[in-house]
């Protein structure tokens, strides 16, 4: 059981990294990875939303969706949108400073496909509440890791002399490709032994 939890965590974070292996959450990944500090904060907010979503999805899967499987997608979307709204309200009340720092990125989490994918794959894999939580933290951690690595690289690249034609999205794509290549080395970390 414990090794299973560890496997879920490592698999979601490194081997099947949401961003670098499944291409999820690319909009914030390219949009917000300009500065290390904001990247890290957005990562934390995403982990938080993922954890709450995972709890709600466990609840939905246990009590509502067995009776109406066709409402799955809509109910997930509604849960995610309201979670984000809720988190936004709580942060605004508790810490206005953090709210200002996160700014536009908070509502943007709603359209982060990583969160919807988390909900769907948690359902598909039939995870228990605990497994779902571990999966959410692992996936969010993986997203944060990728975001922070990318932001660090981009801050460096900004200082170097790059032809105008290459600058921007094309260069970011290729950097992400190389990062993804590096993450492929994690495959096989947990199997066959």
């Amino acid at each position, binding site marked *: 059981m414990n090794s299973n939890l560890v496997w879920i965590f490592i698999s979601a974070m490194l081997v099947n990294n949401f961003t670098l292996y499944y291409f999820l959450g690319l909009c914030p990944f390219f949009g917000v990875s300009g500065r290390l500090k904001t990247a890290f904060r957005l990562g934390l907010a995403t982990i938080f939303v993922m954890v709450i979503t995972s709890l709600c999805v466990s609840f939905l899967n246990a009590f509502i969706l067995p009776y109406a499987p066709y409402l799955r997608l*809509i109910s997930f979307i509604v849960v995610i949108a309201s979670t984000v709204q809720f988190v936004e309200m709580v942060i605004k009340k508790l810490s206005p400073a953090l709210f200002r720092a996160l700014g536009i990125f908070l509502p943007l989490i709603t359209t982060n496909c990583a969160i919807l994918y988390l909900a769907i794959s948690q359902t598909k894999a039939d995870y228990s509440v605990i497994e779902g939580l571990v999966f959410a933290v692992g996936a969010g951690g993986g997203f944060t890791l990728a975001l922070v690595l990318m932001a660090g690289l981009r801050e460096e690249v900004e200082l170097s002399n790059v032809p105008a034609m290459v600058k921007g999205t094309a260069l970011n794509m290729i950097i992400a490709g190389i990062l993804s290549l590096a993450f492929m080395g994690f495959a096989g970390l*947990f199997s066959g032994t």
Partner: protein
Amino acid sequence: MTEVQLTISAGQQPSQPSSLRLVLTLGIAGLLSGFAIAGAYQITKPIIDANNARALEAAVFKVVPGSTRMRKLALRDGLLVPVAGDEPVTDPVVYGAYDDAGDFLGYAIEGAGSGFQDIIRLLYGYDPVRRCVIGLEILESRETPGLGDKIYKDAAFQANFEALSVEPPIVVVKDGRDADNEVDAITGATISSLAVVKIINTVTGAWLPDLPPPGEEPPAPPAEPDAPEQEQQGGER
């Protein structure tokens, strides 16, 4: 008409529409979408179920060579009992495979475990008389194309599972088979090969004590009156 004009002018005004109207709009949208989705679900569900059943049947017939009929068997209180194909069960399930005459040929057992990249789900045939694996089908995997995906694309690797003794437990070797319980690993995909073998060993180990002694398997399903017609449909597609 007047209503339309009213709403248009209301939309153009900067003032806040009443919250009742907001709730009403969302409610109506939700209701309509619920109807649309439920309708689409009702129409497509029988087709989807038939597709899934056909895919499962094809997989079972492949891993138990020679079989033409199957039935779902659930383990309840230490006994294998037949259940209907669409009945939801929480107990562990295997599939019994039978030939035309209704003679029992073997079990098709599903297993899953971590592979090189992600979960591998597979189905394998098990012959309780010879106590060996008689066929393997990978249902789901994300193994590396060109290397790990040979677990289902490489005929030579698949051939390992045509008569593979499960006692003593299956082992993976790298220099060709020379015992009944050995699997020759795919070059460059040892971990994927190991993962497949590990899943089969674990699942077989869990099932063996619960399977009835050979000869006492549940009987073949009663022949369905519309079976030939269904088969023809399957053949056309």
